């Protein structure tokens, strides 16, 4: 009998281990410890044994039944943990269902990136209207009376407001700098502000020229600011945009509203300064003009240029965005073409 018990036990263990589902396990259970199970049937044979053997065999048999029940319960738990709600052929490689897609215009994104950078340096954000007068577009910015930019061929003048004195002549602003004068007139120095906005030029468009584009001006005016401080400002902007420190150079440039004036170049990010077709083999790319506000501009804003000075940069956002993403046609920005815009989420 002892042998029999042991052989049933080992057979039961094998079947339990092989069981692949709970129902199979249930069958195994009834086959051994159920009412008609083989171990239960053996129990009925105990009375037929010699009396001396009965207690020992009874004990062995009970232990075997307990053991089988225990292993089955262990196995049941194991099967429960392994179980899935889906069939085994479920395909996890099917694509996800995407959340409703929307996005900010890539120039807005760039503008907000820069706003964050400048806010962290304590700059205010200033915004101003698109229509301005010749007085603020040119006069207050030290443009001589016959400067070519004043001609209608460069500026969008408004019908019915395109002649007369400069405070009556109105146009879509050709640049942002006039707005800086407005800010300075209505705030007390020192100044630290940025000024993003759209500007307009009456010109023929192509992949690199647009009639409406975005500028981002930053101006700091205080006592004893030197143009060398401007380098700090420029480095902050570019490292924010490109994520790494970008070598920068300032070279001589001329704009009526600054003195001295600079063209600010950054090292070409495509070739790392070695020279390539993007940078016309010079290793540098012109990114923004800058300089110290011309004494006449500070005067126009009501400041004494002997006391105050500053540093200003004017970033062409379109150009910076084009470099960031490798966009090769500036006209796409105003196209409202979702095939283009959806790429910048």
């Amino acid at each position, binding site marked *: 009998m002892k042998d029999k018990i042991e052989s049933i036990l080992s057979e039961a263990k094998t079947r339990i281990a092989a069981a692949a589902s709970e129902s199979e396990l249930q069958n195994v259970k009834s086959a051994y410890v159920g009412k008609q199970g083989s171990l239960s049937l053996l129990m009925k044979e105990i009375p037929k044994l010699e009396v001396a053997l009965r207690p020992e065999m009874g004990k062995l048999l009970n232990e075997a039944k307990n053991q089988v029940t225990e292993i089955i319960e262990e196995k049941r738990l194991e099967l429960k943990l392994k179980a899935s709600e889906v069939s085994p052929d479920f395909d996890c490689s099917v694509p996800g269902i995407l959340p*409703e*897609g*929307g*996005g*900010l*215009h890539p120039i*807005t994104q760039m503008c907000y990136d820069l*706003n964050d950078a400048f*806010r962290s340096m*304590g700059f*205010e954000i200033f915004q101003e*209207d*698109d*229509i*301005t007068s010749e007085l*603020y577009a040119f006069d207050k910015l030290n443009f*001589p009376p*016959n400067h070519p930019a004043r001609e209608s*061929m460069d500026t*969008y*003048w*408004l*019908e*019915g407001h395109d002649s007369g004195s400069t*405070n*009556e002549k109105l146009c*879509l602003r050709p640049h942002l700098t006039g707005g800086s004068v*407005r800010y300075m007139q209505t705030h007390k120095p020192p100044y630290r502000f940025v000024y993003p906005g*759209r500007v*307009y030029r*009456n010109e023929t468009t192509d992949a690199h020229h647009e*009639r*409406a584009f975005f500028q981002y001006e930053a101006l*700091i005016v*205080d006592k*004893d600011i*030197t143009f*060398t*401080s401007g*380098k*700090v400002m420029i*480095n902050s902007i570019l490292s924010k945009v490109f994520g790494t420190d970008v070598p920068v150079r*300032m*070279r*001589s440039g*001329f704009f009526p509203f600054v*003195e*001295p*004036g600079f*063209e600010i170049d950054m090292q070409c990010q495509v070739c790392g300064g070695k020279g390539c077709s993007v940078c*016309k083999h010079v290793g540098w790319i012109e990114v923004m003009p800058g300089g*110290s506000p011309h*004494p006449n501009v500070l005067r126009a804003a009501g400041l004494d240029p002997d006391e105050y*000075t500053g*540093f200003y940069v004017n970033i062409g956002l379109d150009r910076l965005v084009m470099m960031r993403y490798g966009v090769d046609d500036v006209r796409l920005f*105003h*196209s*409202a073409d*979702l095939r283009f815009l*959806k790429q910048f989420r």
Partner: protein
Amino acid sequence: MKLSLSWIKDYVKIPEDMDLKKLAYDLTMSTVEVEDVEYLAKRFEKMVVGVIEKVEPHPNADKLRVCTVDIGEDECKQIVCGGINLQEGMRVAVSCPGAMVRWHGEGEPVMIKNSKLRGVESYGMICASDEIGLGDLFPAEQEAEILDLSAFDVPAGTPLADALDMNDVLLEIDNKSMTNRPDLWGHYGIAREIAALYDLPLVEIKPYQADVKSDFKVEIADPERCPRYIGVEMSGVEVKSSPYQMQNRIWKAGMRPINALVDITNYVMLATGNPTHAFDADNITDHIVVRRAAEGEKLVLLNEHELTLCPDDLVITDSEGPVALAGVMGGAKDSILPKTKRVILEVANFESTGVRRTALRYDNRTEASSRYEKAVDPERCDQALALSMQYFQELYPELTVTGFCDQYVNKLERAQIDVSLTWLAKRLGKSLSNEVIQKKLELLGFTVQIDGDNMHVIAPTWRSTGDISIKDDVMEEVARLYGYDNFEATAFTTSFTGAINQKDQDLIRHIKEYLAIRCGMQEVYTYPWMNDVFVNAVLQSTEGVLRLSTPPAPDLSYIRSSLLPNLCEAVVKNERYFHDFSIFEEAEVFFDRNYTSPYDETESLPEQKRHIGAAFASSVKDVTRLFREAKGVLESMPRYTHMEGFTFRKEEKPVWADSIVWLNIFRGEEKIGDMGLLAKKVSMDCGIKNLSVMLFELDATKLVPLKSRTNKFTHLAEYPETDYDISMLFDSNTAWADMYEVIMGAKKASALVKEASFVDEYRGKQIPDGKKSVTIRLTIGSAEKTLTSEEIESAANQVMKKLGKKLGAELRTQ
């Protein structure tokens, strides 16, 4: 502007081992942007002078010849050529295999290869001038004319670049980078700048000493517009070709050689930056007077255009009338003709803005006017005169000067500026020694006297026409010559006055981020001008809409008073590719009214506001769904962007909206925007084919950000609340707003109803005509206890009863 390095070297001794890359870099950093440094000889690689030994007919082609050409190698080469002027003994330009040429002077350059032409082997190519880019230097008189180099006495095989003096370097300078530097518009000016940069000796141009007694005179009637005029009358000249070197340099600078008399004037202009002009003296009646034109006076220009002048034009005249437009272009009457034997040379100075106005008035900007309009200094006439006379005498040894007159009526004052050295050091952010400062300025031609802290600076004449006028200009000169690279970045220090708190700025950003990120809409940018088609379709009136005087196109003259026309245009553009999309734009709109300025009382600006507009386009015909989506975006906007909320009601239908599906948007009693379905007719006028479009537009200036977040905490319900849906039949025109009022208004239907929300409405099958079924979800609960199901049902019944009583609602029977 293109500059020849060998020409520059006439005036400044640049060391032979000077690294040209460095020269270009230094000029770029300190003075002007050098866009390109071109080794000219590279254009003529693999090109040599060949001598034609034999010309034979081509066996298979009438128009081709088979030439035997000596190109300086052991054996002559056989070259097939279609030239019409091939002669034995002729020197020609031969492009050997590997050379780059343009076929017939057109298209992209192609590489020459050994080839067979109509069955005959041909080594390279005998070239026409325009095939090797020399069409302007050696203009061909007829088609298929081969460049005849017989005048160049060089042996066969001489590299073409050597033979034609093309071993030169061209510096291309960005004109925009030197608009403020009239002194740089010539080879001498750049040479002077290079001399200053590297402290190199500059060649002086010795003034011309006139030695002639005659009654020749010129008269200046307007010293303001013509500060100086030198006339030189000469005989013994004729029209002939100028020497090759002069032609070569004129060509390198980007102009065309014409004839010796014209070439001298152009050459001198390219050298000094001072335009000069030569008149045929026999066509000048009496003497030259420089004066303003009379109203309506006529002048026929060199280019045959007849101008009707106005008194703002300055003209060169003789006793019969105008002969030239001063500083812009000569006239036809006095122009150099083949018969010209006597000339009057004009070396003059004209005031910049006058020249500019005249050139613009007649749309005639010339090499001369573009230089004068930068403000050339009158002292430069001396150099221009000296160089002119040098070349006239070289080219015409028989020449006699028969008259000379120098009217310098408006003498240039050199600019004088006092600069405090302490101020200079402060502004530079670096203290330079007085010696360094003085040296740098003197290299640039300034006269410098230092007395204690004061530095008295006198600008050179060529920088005194407005370029240098204040101490900041002097600072810039010192800084750029010292080298901007040599100044280290210094941190700026400034006071901290408190955190930046700009709620208005933040609100706009929050709204845009809400629309883009939470509502899944795409931001777009459009132009401020609107297409007439969309103005007519959407706005339907142009009253109060501003226009541009010179619009980008005739049908784009109105600038927006609403964002919706351009958004509709954007819908049309995107309809081809997308069937279900929503877009928004935030931009300024303009109105022809309320002229004022918050910044300046003398200024009058029109009303300008920032608007936020949106379009929801869908091909699904379920307009209710589209309407509710758009309304939902507006309803949650105040909550998510932390601004004061708004309400909706119908007061005034927007012209573009469907007759029923529209709402005005209010903040308090003030209307701040509209929303609605684009009317079918408007949609068709816009050219929208299949999409239904919901629009909204908000006046962003009327949106008020909350001072801080205001949503208050509510205690979590202590006892469970239950959602209980009821469906009832209402008259089809009963508004949800009224149902809500009945359930949740001041006299609540049941105190246990915490909230009522709209689930859906249904018309159609099983619903009687004129009725609709509305499903309403009631949230029922109590603060005191857990409600029994009887209590919940009783509350719902109270609601249904009240809806029945007040609005005639019936329980849906099945």
